[in-house]
Structures are given as structure tokens and as C-alpha cells.
């Protein structure tokens, strides 16, 4: 080898570095929007480009200092399945479908009362057997096609088709599924069939409408893999999709053609959803004003956010609850008295204080305290180790050999494992605190950590149910429906974790689903909450408050139980800060 060839190698390395840098630069795209190299995207994105240009020419931006600028939201995770309404279950993704890129038929106001959105009005058949929606005539897909009744019918048949595997299939329990359930009356009027039931508008506030002219030919089973969701969604909402770099960011731009009657174009020119997987980094990004909203910081970062003069901490009650689900198929957990004793032997109030620093409320059931169905007069089980011991004695569990752990008459130990998923400190703390507190009443608890995919398989597989207790959480819709969780006929379905059978509970669950009138439903809900406390299929822990860090330069931000993005089209940047 000579020095000549060594130079060649060196030059090769330089070329490699340069080419790597330039490919990386190409990804961002300046000027024209970047179009993924996929036939579908190549076809639709130029139309989107043309639509935006045309709409911008037709609707000049009003002369108001609030228009303009870019706001950035930072969160820990990617929006799984993106704008693919048919298959996505991710919270952020669904929020963006509802409020950013697409439109729902109706939406909710601050008091969670339905109000017109894509549907300008609706009427219900006298016998409550159908609901008819009248659509707005000024809504256009971002490729220029008008949104009409065919899109609604297509979306409805798609999400109710079992082949699609719509993740919230429980939405359609009381609707006539498939093509039989939807009738196009004219281009802007569509009727959906159902059996009379409570809160029947709720799914239409949550499931956004998809474009029939783009996806109508795709077989339902193939929608999951269609590039529409993650690579080039074409919506009809206030923001037009611009680009998506996986695990990095989504960029949206204002839709200049958004109906004037709904407020016209959003104030922001661009809206960016950034994925920053580390909470410490997210906090640093918020404090250095690189992001304007930090979605759900952990409670231990709350004080740091409050102390900073440039950012505010938003706090609101939300729809999710953390609980320990019990497997009543296990002999030691089959008796409701044992499950009640476990709850009474656990000091949930002090756990909320310690783990959430007070940002949360102890839960006694699945109905969130802010919800109209919540009955504050129903008294939950309070921390009572004496009472727990008495209940366990009554159920036949006594410490017969003096080792500190109770046994039944056959000498089987009252020993339960509690599983939780890897990397979730709060859930680990819950399992460990329960271990300490329940040893005081003679119950042996073994915390066990399992990775998320494995855990789901162990608890969801009907023939497996390989767990005693599991620390986990649910996010409820505004229409509460626990049928899939607790009804004894659903016991072989994936989410019947507890496997409890209670005729009173069955009766209430069915009746609650059918009761249309809220005042009538209230007393049923109150009864239901009492039965839940009696039965204790779960030890309910808490409703955590939802926390968000919001920069003061971002104004007009409303956040409540409807979600972080509920009024994103009204957000604007303080003109003085730009």
C-alpha cells in the first residue's frame, strides 16, 4: 500500500459524509410540499397544492395582527395510524382527526352539549330509531372535492364493517351496522338507523368523516395499510396536512378555504406536532420557548412549570382512570368480600397525594366526577384496615399458621400477584405500595413487571387470562358504556378482565345503554355506582388531572375534558412575541 491509496480512502470518507448530509437536507423540503414516493400521494398531493393556492387567492387573510406564525406542540409519542380514522385508537391521532385535519358531524361545547359542525342540523325520528344529519354545503376536501352525504355513508359503512377492525367497535352496539344502517336521502342529507339508546350523538362527535372519492375503492381489510393515514392524509378540517417525518414531526398549514361560518381560516399559518420522547428534554424545550405546548408533563415537573414566568400550567379533569383490575376467575379473588377488603386495606388518598402530588382525585368507580352521570352522594370504600381484616375473616381467610399471611380452610395462601408494564413508574409504585399496605391485613402481594405487548396478551387472551391483578388505565368516551368490561355475557371477550358475574350489574348495564333520557338515566347511574363498589371488579385508584404546559406567547388556548386540541383553530401567537 502506498500513501496514494490512503488519500483515496480519505476522500471516499469525505464524499460519504457530504452525501449523507445532503440526503438528510432533502427531507425537509423548502417551497413546494414534500411528496412521499407513493403512487397515491403522487396523485393527490399536487391537487392539494392547487386547492390551497386557489383558496388562498379567493380568501385573502383578514387584516388582523392575530393571523400568522407557527405554533409547536411537543409530545412524547408518535400519532399511531395518523389520520386513518378507520383503524386508529391513539389519543393524539384521534384529537387531530377531530379538530385539526378532518371534521366530525357534530362537536361538543364547553358543557359537553352537542352543537353543529360538519352537520349544520339534525333531527331524530320520533321513535328514536334513526337520526338524520343535514350537512353543510361549504365544506371541501383539501383536494378541492366537496364533502357530502356519500362521504358520511362511506365512513359509516367502513367503520361498522367488521373487516375494518375499527378499534372502538363498542360505539356501534346500538346502531344498525353496515350498508343497511345508512340511507343517503340527497347529496347533503343522510340518515343513520339505530335502536333507541342513550347519548346516541356521541360517536359522531368522535369519529371523523373520511373522503369517499379517495378511499371508496380500497377494500376495508386493506385500509389499515393504506398510505392515507400516515403519509398523505387529505382532510377537510381547519388545517391542511403538509408533511410527516416518522418519530419526528407532523406539519400542518392553515386551510384558507375553511368555511367562514365556522370561523374561516385558523389564526396560525402553520401548526407543528413534534415528537420528543424524553420528558426532561420536553421540559427544556418548553422553558426555552422552542415549543408552545407541552402535552401532559408528569406531576413532578408541574412546579418547575408553575415557577417559570413565561409558561403556564393548565390543569383540568379528564376521562381516564387508573385502577387495579382483578381476575375473579382466580379462587382467592372470586369472593367480592376479598376484593372489597383489598380496596379497604389500601390507602388510596395518600397514594394520590404522594404519586400525583395532589393532581388527581380518588376514584370509586368508572364515572368521572365532572360527568353528568356522576353521583357525589354515593360513598366509596374508605381506608379501613380493621374493616378489611373483619371482611377477610368473614370470607374464611384467617392466618392459621401464624406466618402473617392468611390461608383458607384448605391451607391455600391468600397470595396475589399484581402485574404492571415496564417503564411506568407510577404503576410500579402502586403495586409496591399495595404490597406494603396489604401485608398489614394479611394479604401477600407479589408485584410483577411485564412488557406492554406481553401484558396485553396475558390479560386479553380469553383462554389465557394469566394474571391475578393488573395495574392499568382506561380512557372513557363521553358516552359511558362498561358493557364490554363487566357484562357476564361478554365474559369471553378480550376486555372482560374481571370475569365477574352479577345479575344486578348485567341488568343495569343493559338498561343504561337503552335509556335515552338523562334525568331517568341519572338514578340508574347512581345505582350502578353502588353496585360497582359492592362488586369491586377493579380497585379503582384515581382520575389523574390532565396537565399541560402552555407558553404565554400562545393565546386563546382552551383546554378541558374534550382534549388539548379542541380549539386549535382559535389559537394565536401574541403579535408582540413574533
Amino acid at each position, binding site marked *: 500500500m502506498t500513501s496514494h491509496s490512503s488519500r483515496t480512502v480519505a476522500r471516499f470518507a469525505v464524499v460519504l459524509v457530504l452525501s449523507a448530509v445532503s440526503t438528510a437536507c432533502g427531507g425537509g423540503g423548502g417551497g413546494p410540499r414534500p411528496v412521499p414516493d407513493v403512487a397515491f400521494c403522487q396523485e393527490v398531493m399536487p391537487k392539494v397544492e392547487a386547492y390551497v393556492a386557489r383558496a388562498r387567492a379567493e380568501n385573502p387573510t383578514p387584516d388582523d395582527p392575530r393571523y400568522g406564525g407557527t405554533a409547536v406542540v411537543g409530545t412524547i409519542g408518535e400519532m399511531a395510524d395518523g389520520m386513518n380514522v378507520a383503524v386508529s385508537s391513539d389519543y393524539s391521532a384521534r384529537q387531530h382527526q377531530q379538530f385539526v385535519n378532518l371534521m366530525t358531524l357534530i362537536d361538543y361545547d364547553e358543557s359537553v352539549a352537542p352543537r353543529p359542525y360538519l352537520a349544520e342540523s339534525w333531527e331524530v325520528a320520533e321513535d328514536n330509531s334513526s337520526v338524520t344529519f343535514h350537512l353543510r354545503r361549504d365544506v371541501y376536501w383539501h383536494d378541492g372535492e366537496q364533502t357530502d352525504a356519500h362521504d358520511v355513508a362511506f365512513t359509516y359503512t367502513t367503520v361498522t364493517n367488521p373487516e375494518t377492525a375499527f378499534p372502538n367497535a363498542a360505539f356501534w352496539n346500538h346502531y344498525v351496522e353496515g350498508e343497511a344502517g345508512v340511507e343517503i336521502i340527497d347529496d347533503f342529507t343522510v340518515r343513520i338507523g339505530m335502536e333507541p339508546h342513550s347519548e346516541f350523538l356521541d360517536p359522531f362527535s368522535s369519529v371523523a368523516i373520511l373522503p369517499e372519492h379517495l378511499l371508496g375503492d380500497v377494500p376495508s381489510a386493506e385500509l389499515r*395499510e393504506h398510505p392515507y393515514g*400516515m403519509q398523505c392524509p387529505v382532510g377537510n378540517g381547519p388545517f391542511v396536512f403538509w408533511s410527516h417525518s416518522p418519530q419526528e414531526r407532523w406539519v400542518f398549514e392553515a386551510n384558507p378555504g375553511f368555511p367562514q361560518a365556522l370561523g374561516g381560516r385558523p389564526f396560525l399559518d402553520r401548526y407543528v406536532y413534534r415528537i420528543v*420522547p424524553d420528558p426532561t428534554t420536553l421540559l*427544556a424545550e418548553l422553558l*426555552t420557548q422552542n415549543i408552545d405546548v407541552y402535552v401532559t408533563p408528569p406531576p413532578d415537573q408541574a412546579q418547575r412549570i408553575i415557577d417559570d414566568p413565561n409558561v403556564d400550567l393548565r390543569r383540568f379533569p379528564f376521562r381516564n382512570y387508573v385502577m387495579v383490575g382483578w381476575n375473579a376467575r382466580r379462587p382467592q379473588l372470586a369472593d367480592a368480600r376479598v376484593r372489597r377488603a383489598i380496596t379497604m386495606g389500601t390507602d388510596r388518598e395518600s397514594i394520590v397525594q404522594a404519586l400525583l402530588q395532589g393532581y388527581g382525585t380518588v376514584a370509586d368507580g368508572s364515572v368521572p366526577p365532572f360527568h353528568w352521570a356522576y353521583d357525589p352522594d354515593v360513598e366509596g370504600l374508605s381506608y379501613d384496615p380493621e374493616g378489611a381484616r373483619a371482611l377477610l375473616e368473614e370470607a374464611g381467610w384467617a392466618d392459621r399458621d401464624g406466618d402473617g399471611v392468611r390461608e383458607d380452610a384448605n391451607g391455600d395462601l391468600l397470595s396475589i400477584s399484581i402485574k404492571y408494564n415496564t417503564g411506568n413508574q407510577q404503576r410500579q409504585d402502586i403495586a409496591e405500595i399495595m404490597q406494603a399496605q396489604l401485608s398489614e391485613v394479611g394479604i401477600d402481594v407479589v408485584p410483577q413487571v411485564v412488557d406492554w405487548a406481553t401484558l396485553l396478551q396475558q390479560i*386479553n387472551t380469553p383462554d389465557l387470562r394469566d394474571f391475578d391483578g393488573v395495574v392499568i388505565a382506561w380512557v372513557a368516551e363521553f358516552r359511558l358504556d362498561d358493557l364490554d368490561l363487566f357484562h357476564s355475557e361478554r365474559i369471553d371477550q378480550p376486555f372482560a378482565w374481571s370475569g365477574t358475574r352479577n345479575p344486578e350489574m348485567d341488568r343495569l348495564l343493559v338498561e343504561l345503554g337503552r335509556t335515552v333520557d338523562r334525568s331517568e338515566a341519572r338514578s340508574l347511574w347512581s345505582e350502578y355506582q353502588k353496585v360497582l363498589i359492592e362488586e369491586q371488579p377493579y380497585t379503582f385508584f384515581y382520575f389523574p388531572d390532565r396537565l399541560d404546559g402552555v407558553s404565554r406567547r400562545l393565546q386563546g388556548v382552551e383546554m378541558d375534558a374534550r382534549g388539548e386540541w379542541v380549539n386549535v383553530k382559535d389559537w394565536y401567537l401574541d403579535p408582540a412575541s413574533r
Partner: protein
Amino acid sequence: MGRYVLRRLAGAVPLVVGIATLIFFLVHLAPGSPVDLIIGPGVTREFRTQMIETYGWDLPLPVQYVKWLSAMLTGDFGYSFSQTRPVRDVLLGYLPNTVVLSLAALTVAFFFGIVLGTVQAIRQYSLLDSGLSVVLLFFYSMPSFWLALMLILTMSLTLGWFPVSGTVSTDHEFLGLGARIVDRARHLALPTLSLALVLTAGIARYMRASMLEVVRQDYVRTAHAKGLPERVVVFKHALRNALIPVVTLVGLYLPFLFSGTVFIETIFAWPGMGRAIVNAIGQRDYPLVMAGSFFFAMMVVLANLLADILYAVVDPRIRYE
């Protein structure tokens, strides 16, 4: 030389296939399935079964293995269902970010490692040598994720010199070409430093030891004796020979950088291969996990080959024919 490279590559084929096989069975033997991550409340048991059949996860493992291997040999890495794109596109999307970060870290680490190690060796036992040793050992003992957080705290939060995270700033698309390159470089600085500081310390220690050995050789003494200036002796006569053991480190560090930067990618929100594969494991995205692991195995093989070729470059005594 060319034949040698070809022979080495051919020898790597059974190795890579063996690794791929091992990965396939390990991934499939792990409990948990992607179905449970996809479905939500109300999905019936029948549907769950149907979905498993659609993706072919009900077939016996050997059958799945043969299907996967034959597809892969024809260049079809499969479909990543967690990202709803072909695996090839997923990997190609992350690769540039990983390559840029790895090469930047490697370049910085070797440059400073070699310079500092050489300086320490020729000023052995001086105050400078001891001082550098203390500083380098400090960085060598730091976990890189801690170092990363400290760099963010000082360089971004307090001093505001560099952006906290990400690969580009929000207004990147609107910048001119020059400003865009500067923007990229500024975002690259902290992750590169976090990775490179630890490596630099290691390389400098190796370099110092190797240089100390070489400067005691007869030919170096001869060079001194015939009155050559210090600079010429060190850089022309000693350095090249002292580099030989250090070159081995390229083969070790390159695959480490390509695969082992998950913490750094997470802290700096850097969308690279490491994070992609770890996410894929969590979601049991079998095709992506297997293709990614396969890629890493290839990297190890290639990096070792590269190290062997570099030996020949720095050591005139080594020839491959």
C-alpha cells in the same frame, strides 16, 4: 486487495444468515403479540382470530421462517404494520439521520482522541498530561445519557448556544441553503458531543499508550539523532505507526454508534435507527425488528472489514493478496 474484500464478504454470508435465523426465533419466542396492541374494546374474539390469520401469525414458526427468509433474500423486507409502510422505506427514512450522527461523532472522537493522546504522550508526566488524564477519565466514566442531559442544561437552557433537541428547527423549510446547513449543524452539535466525549476519552487513552511505545523505538531515536525537528519526528515517523492499534477501534465503535445510540436518540428527539428498532420491539413489529437487526449485523461485519482495510493503509507491512 479486491479479491480479499470479496472473499471476506462471501465468508460473511453464512454468519449474517445465522444471525438472522437467531433473531427470527428469538423475536417470535418472546411472549405478546401485535394483535393485542392494535385492537380496542368491543373487538370480538372471532375478529381477533381473523386478524391473526390475515397477517399469517397462526402459521407454524418454521413455515413463517422459510417465507420470511425467502422474501428477504429476494430483497423484500416485508411490511411494517406499526408504521404502515414497507420496511425498506422505514429503514431508508431513518438511515440518513443515523449515518450523519454516527459519522459526526466518530470524526470528532477520533480527531480529538488522536490529537489529545499524542499531546499527552509527547508531554508525558507534565502538568498538561495529568490534567488531561483527569478530564478524560471524568468523561470516560460518565454515562452518555447523563452527559447529554448536562449538556442540554448548560449549553441550551443556561447559555442558549445550541437548540435542545430535534434535527432541524421549525422554520427550517424557509431558510436559505447556507442557513439550512448551519441549522442542521447546530442541531447536530449536542448529540455529537454527548456521543463523542465518551469515545474521545477512550481513544485518547489508547493513543497515548500506543504513542509512548512508539516514541521509544530505535527509529524514532535515530530520527531525533539526525537532527530532525520534533514536529517531523512525531507526525511523520511516530504517528502513523502509533495509529495501528487505534484503527481497530473503528471496527468496534462504528457498529456501536449505528445501533447503540438509543438513549441519545431519545433524549435529543433524534429519529434514528436505534429508536426505530426499540419502538418496533415494543410493538412486536416483527418485520421491522428483523430487518433492523439484520442491518446491524451487516454493520458489524462491514465495520470489521473496514478496520482490516485501514490496517493496510496505515501499516505498510500488511498486504492482502
